[in-house]
């Protein structure tokens, strides 16, 4: 919109940005419109060329493609591959794109036909096992969270434009939760995945006294065995632990382990 961008004398290219969605609630994209205070600055920093939820104009090339949602149908693989072809940088936006999100909860049933029948009866409907984007295309950058945090997206976009290395916190949510001087939810009798979930959300849920469900996936080197131990010490069943571990898909492999030790719930179909 305005003239040439630059930072510390380095001329910068205003990136052409596209937003795309596969199977999702489209909430992560909406979060960008929820940037009321900074929306106009944001629009000055990038050139949005594709944003179906918000605009009619479309373009076919873009520097950065933000893709929300997970892959749950064959035509989405085609769309995703197409987006990848036209994008210099492909960003997985939100937990669905990074891990499969809540959608991948259906993978825990052995039987996809049962899933279809449960919702659509005998009406024919197409679906497949849920996958994150990285199962099909190269993902250059992941923005975690359900939903994503708009401040984080703004920081990441600014860093991309300026050419700074994008870094995610490697430590778990506990770090940010304590820095907010919250009461540990275990003290209050609530289960929480904060000790193993990647931070960066500023303890969004736990600061509201809601235990962490691990939407941002595991922290680097997360001590999952100890997490399980803690849940038991505080009197929470494997099922309660599993509800959280499997909710967004970031902890899928550990959820498998817990599930195999917890025979009451149906086992996840082994990936071929």
């Amino acid at each position, binding site marked *: 919109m305005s003239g040439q961008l630059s930072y510390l004398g380095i001329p910068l290219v205003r990136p052409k940005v596209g937003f795309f969605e596969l199977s999702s609630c489209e*909430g992560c994209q909406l979060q960008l419109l929820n940037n009321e205070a900074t929306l106009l600055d944001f629009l000055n920093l990038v050139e949005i060329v594709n*944003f179906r939820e918000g605009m009619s104009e479309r373009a076919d090339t873009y520097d950065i493609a933000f893709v929300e949602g997970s892959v*749950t149908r064959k035509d989405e693989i085609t769309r995703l591959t197409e987006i990848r072809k036209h994008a210099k940088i492909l960003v997985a936006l939100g937990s669905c794109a990074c891990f499969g999100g809540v959608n991948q909860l259906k993978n825990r049933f052995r039987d996809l036909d049962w899933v279809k029948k449960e919702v659509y009866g005998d009406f024919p409907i197409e679906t497949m096992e849920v996958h994150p984007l990285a199962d099909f295309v190269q993902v250059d950058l992941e923005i975690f969270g359900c*939903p994503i945090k708009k401040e984080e997206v703004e920081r990441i976009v600014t860093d991309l434009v300026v050419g700074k290395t994008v870094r995610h916190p490697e430590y778990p949510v506990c770090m940010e939760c304590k820095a907010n001087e919250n009461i540990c939810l275990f003290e209050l009798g609530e289960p929480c995945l904060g000790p193993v979930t990647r931070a960066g959300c500023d303890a969004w849920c736990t600061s509201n006294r809601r235990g962490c469900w691990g939407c941002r996936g595991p922290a680097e080197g997360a001590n999952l065995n100890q997490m399980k131990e803690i849940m038991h010490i505080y009197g929470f069943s494997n099922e309660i632990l599993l509800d959280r571990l499997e909710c967004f898909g970031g902890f899928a492999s550990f959820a498998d382990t817990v599930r195999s030790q917890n025979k009451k*719930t149906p086992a996840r179909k082994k990936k071929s």
Partner: protein
Amino acid sequence: MKFSCEVDVRHLTRVEGHGNITISIKNGVVKKAQWEVVETPRFFEALLVGKHWENAPYICGRICGICSIGHTLASIRAVENAFGITPSPQTANLRLLLKHMETLQSHILHLYFLAAPDFLGVGSVLPLAKSHPEVVQRALRLKLLANDACDIIGGRRLHPTRTVVGGFTMLPEKGELEKIRQRLLASVPDLLASAELFKTFGIPDFSRETEFVSLKGETDYPFIGGGLVSTDGVLKKEHQYRGMTNEYCAEGFTSKLSKLSRASFAVGALARLNNNFPLLHPTAQEVSKSLGLVPVNHNPYMCNVAQLVECVHVVFDSVQLIDTLLGSPWQEPRQPVQAKKGEGVGAVEVPRGILYHYYKFNSHGKVIKADCVIPTSQNHANILHDIEALASQYAGTGKQDREIELLAEMLVRAYDPCISCSVH
């Protein structure tokens, strides 16, 4: 004169989710007029099966990114109804306030970001930031107010964190509520200015007699729970929602469809207003009349106006709710929950219409059956019939393809469809 027309819109823009419009007119005769929903289903109703009750609102809130608060509240209500829990007056008031703020946020988003560009002849809100900065600033101001309020009450504007079965995990600071109250009062001029703006818009002249379904207000304009009503005179209880929706599957729709007394019916702001006009705040009624909206109005494009009227209503009602909340000391935020075998329905008026969640639990409090009926899926058949009628009305009038395309797009947008939500 132009008597043929081809409209083929793949993945309609400025709506939530993926839908296609096809219109084909040959020599003044409508050959085809279609509304298709191609969104990928996510199978939320199956996802919940076998899950402990506390998962339901947490997971189901994620059906929709726009009305996640509404979904969460409908889900919580269904669980509470199944367990026989009645929310405390404090909880009920806070929930309604949160609901109002979602309504305000969603309506403003729709009116200014999704609908207004059509009336102003642009493709999106982006050019408006330059050509009509005061309009965009006003929209952002109103949206920010609503979103801030959602953060304060629900913990988060999207996928709220504090809303749980039994109440809230945490209560807002009273000082923060007081600030929201002041900002609400200060927003009235913005809303009246919005009304003036909409008076300048040429609402397309189109009408098709429609059955309108909504919650039925007794003493207040209805948003959470209560009886179900239709303009054709059907009255049902909340738990009889299936008789009101009669869901079925059809070719061309990954979403389910609904019908009642006729082939289709409509839900949403226009339906609520048509059924509950006298319960609107007096100022909202005045605004409505000044914009030419009096019940029963059968022009689907008037849904935009109904949304604006509701914005006025919720702002005034929210001020009253805050006064009530500030008028007494905080009680416990949350009551204990005892799971039990049973089933429950939660009906909530979300921005796009009436939303139902239904769960059946076993004695361990685990979901054995879930059903969610989304407003947009109730509207789909009606949108389809509207498009057919629209095509017929304009077939042979000599309109250009693009004009008819725009009218069709605007028609769908007027319903503010939440397509991914309708497929869920």
